[in-house]
């Protein structure tokens, strides 16, 4: 996959945060019978080299607790050997009730690949296995 070149006219005082997310991928099931299709969002961010997987996971969970509406942390785990963290959160939005599966991998060159698979709670039983496989499949291309 080759990413297209993009152009955007940024307002004065805005800057392109290439350091925060130099790459992002969005994908979704299409077509999908209901309003909110299961989707995948991947972002790559610089890793904090001094942070343990457990501390990274705790920070992510703290972020979830402070940014999402009515979050319920359903599951969370850190794999020190694989340098991955995985967590499952249900939360509300203005118009939907969502389940988000996050799988974050630390790469050898100092980045974190953060993959988030999202589905409406009502669709979760149908797509759970697909989303688990999908977020775990995200990796650095060889």
């Amino acid at each position, binding site marked *: 996959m080759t990413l297209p070149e993009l152009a955007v006219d940024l307002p004065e005082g805005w800057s392109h945060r290439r350091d925060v997310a130099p790459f992002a991928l969005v994908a979704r099931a299409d077509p999908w019978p209901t309003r909110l299709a299961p989707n995948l969002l991947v972002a790559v961010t610089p890793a904090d080299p001094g942070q343990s997987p457990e501390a990274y996971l705790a920070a992510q969970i703290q972020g979830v607790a402070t940014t999402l509406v*009515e979050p*319920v942390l*359903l*599951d969370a785990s850190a794999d020190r050997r694989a340098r991955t963290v995985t967590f499952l959160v*249900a939360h*509300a939005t203005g118009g*939907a*009730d969502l389940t988000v599966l996050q799988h974050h991998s630390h790469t050898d060159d100092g980045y974190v690949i953060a993959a988030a698979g999202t589905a409406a*709670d*009502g669709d979760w039983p149908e797509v759970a296995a697909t989303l688990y496989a999908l977020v775990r499949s995200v990796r650095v291309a060889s």
Partner: protein
Amino acid sequence: MIAPEYSPERGIIRLPRHHLEAMVGGDERALDPRDEIGRELKELGVVVDGGVDGALRQVLHTLRHPRSRFGLRLEQGADVALHRGWIAASGVVVVSGGTGADDVQDLRAQARPSAAARVLAGLMEIGPAAEVTDLPERSLPWDEVMVPVREGAGTGWARDAIGPTQPVRLTHLRWSSDGVRRATTAMVLLSAGSAGIVEARAADDGYELVARTPAQVWTGLCTLTR
């Protein structure tokens, strides 16, 4: 004991069970200030100008027209918490409290029926948990299943499976898919916080204990409520 209180802007609706049932059933005494129920509801601010306060109308609509209902019993030692839920097109209402006529009921409402699974997960305190191992291979009679719930941490089957320190809580979820028929058992969990979750499944000769992950429980709740 919880006191009756009506402050919907703060998410607080606490009413005696008898008063709540009178309103849900359309009992005229609820709106009559000459009656004790009506007078108390007026003093609380539930009844305003002879009618039910607007903030409670959607809650009452959900309670009167459910498409499904649930009952949840949480038990650990001598502590028992009871929650009842109604799910309708107008939302989800959870009523928590004792079964006596004067027992104050705590009402919590969500405006969308699709919130039901998350509401249940919150009540059941589903969260990150280790995988349970060393469960009994044979089916157990119910009394044996309940030993660690009733007798405390490290007793019965939980001694090997959960460990000596973590208390075990029973979560019994009952479900009525049409809101009318009597609710039947949908899920029986024995959970020990982060130490793990076990499902007790009815078998021919008792109850089979099966290790569950939080994600499996969540999938079960989403399946049940959709």
